[in-house]
């Protein structure tokens, strides 16, 4: 199944750092999320060189995790030439992951 089937999320940006939350709709899916949506899987999903580092923070009581992707916004919103300079679309791209 796709991550989108069991989780939702939102992207935020600060400078050249993107953060993406991944939140279980059903608390029963939390263990699966922790197992399946790892830093390695996220790095592989976006591909080599997408971010200079990726960190995962867990909030088990909310069945939520937060990925922090450094260097992922081609310089950040104020100087990136990208159409979506904030990287606002990235959470939805992550939710395409097969788990």
């Amino acid at each position, binding site marked *: 199944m796709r991550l989108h089937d069991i989780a939702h999320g*939102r992207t935020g940006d600060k400078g050249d750092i993107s*953060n993406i939350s991944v939140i279980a709709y059903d608390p029963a899916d939390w263990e699966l999320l922790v197992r399946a949506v790892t830093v390695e899987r996220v790095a592989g999903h976006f*591909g080599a060189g997408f971010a200079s580092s990726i960190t995962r923070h867990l909030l088990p009581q909310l069945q939520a995790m937060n990925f922090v992707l450094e260097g992922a916004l081609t310089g950040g*919103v104020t100087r990136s030439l990208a159409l979506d300079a904030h990287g606002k679309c990235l959470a939805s791209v992550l939710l395409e992951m*097969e788990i």
Partner: protein
Amino acid sequence: MSVLRIGAGAGFSGDRIAPAVELAERGELDFLVFECLAERTIALAQLARLKNPAAGFDPLLERRMRAVLPVTARNGTRIVTNMGAANPRAAARLVRRIATELGLHGLRIAAVGGDDVLAAIGPCRLDETGAAASALGDRLVSANAYIGVAPIVAALDAGADVVICGRASDPALFLAPLVHHFRWRMDDWTRLGRGTLVGHLLECSAQVTGGYFADPGRKHVPDLARIGFPLAEVDGDGNATITKVAGSGGRVSRASCIEQLLYEIHDPARYLQPDVAADFSRVRIEETGPDRVAVSGADGRAATGMLKISVGYRDGWKGEGQISYAGANCLARAELAASLVGERLADCGAEILETRREVIGHDSIPRPAAAGPSAARPAAAPHEVRMRFAARCRTEAAAETVGEEVEGLYLCGPAGGGGVTRSVTEIIAIASTLMPAGDVETGFEMVEADDAAA
């Protein structure tokens, strides 16, 4: 124990005004907070002020104040906002004048200052470049500290009905009324952390009431067209219920609150603010009724003593052009168009510092790279795509050539291109640094009626 009711009237400079009026009218608010400064807004405002010393504040300030002041004045709701941007005093004088015109003669309006640290920024090393800010020379536009609650609280203590700041930490706009009302000590890290959570959840207005949330078939938001802005009912310990006025659109749910909790957060255990290092790692979020969500469990530790500084600087010009292709073989024609523009712009040589070509509808947003069923999903040939070419240039003239070359594709490009748009904008980039909080002297002044004529 008494409860303070704080509403969010804006979450960015261009936010909708009608929900703020609805909240002011029906939210029984003690405070209404307008958060209108993004990372770069204040640098742009500073440019406006350089052209016109009376400008440099939020362009919607007048419309917002004319819409809400009669209501907030009638209801005894006080306002805190960062719409002062690069010129809080001029903004306060304008609000003074508007209040007078509306017959609201008793309103006390305060301007908060001290966030502008441009004069002292020279020796500070920028995180992004490692060099001193002074190395930017005349490209340096602005330097503003994310200040804390102290001058806002002082203005409220002095009786201000409207407090207008420039750059302050966004949550501080909400934390200040709590510190003022409940007399929280500035070393009560737990309560300051909880108040910061309230501010963080409210600071993007509708992003916690179902805005930026709907996903048809998966996440339903009722009556999104008439979405309401949020308010928090906060008790003296900093525990809060996030809600909105009855009858407004949208939804406040556990899910909407969790999305906003993590929005623009890195390590949830260490959300650094000027007044506290807030800890959101053990926050509890619980639905207690329709559109009512209780939040508790935030904590805090001593602030770092350093303030984040945003440094705005001129970073060249961005030129951009777009053109659409559709139907048979459209993707190949769009890609040919992009490479033609690239070749033709090569003549501009050193004037072009960086280029980016995208085919909207195909690759303008990163797509999953991983092998697997989703990546292997066969890409259907798109019905239409839009080629976008952007470049960062040293000069405005070079940036103009980008759009010119895209427009030139009409007669000298692939078959069937249409709908060209082009633009040129000056790039104001932002870099960051830190400054000891003790070096940033903040304060406020009441803007009296006499100043209105000045």
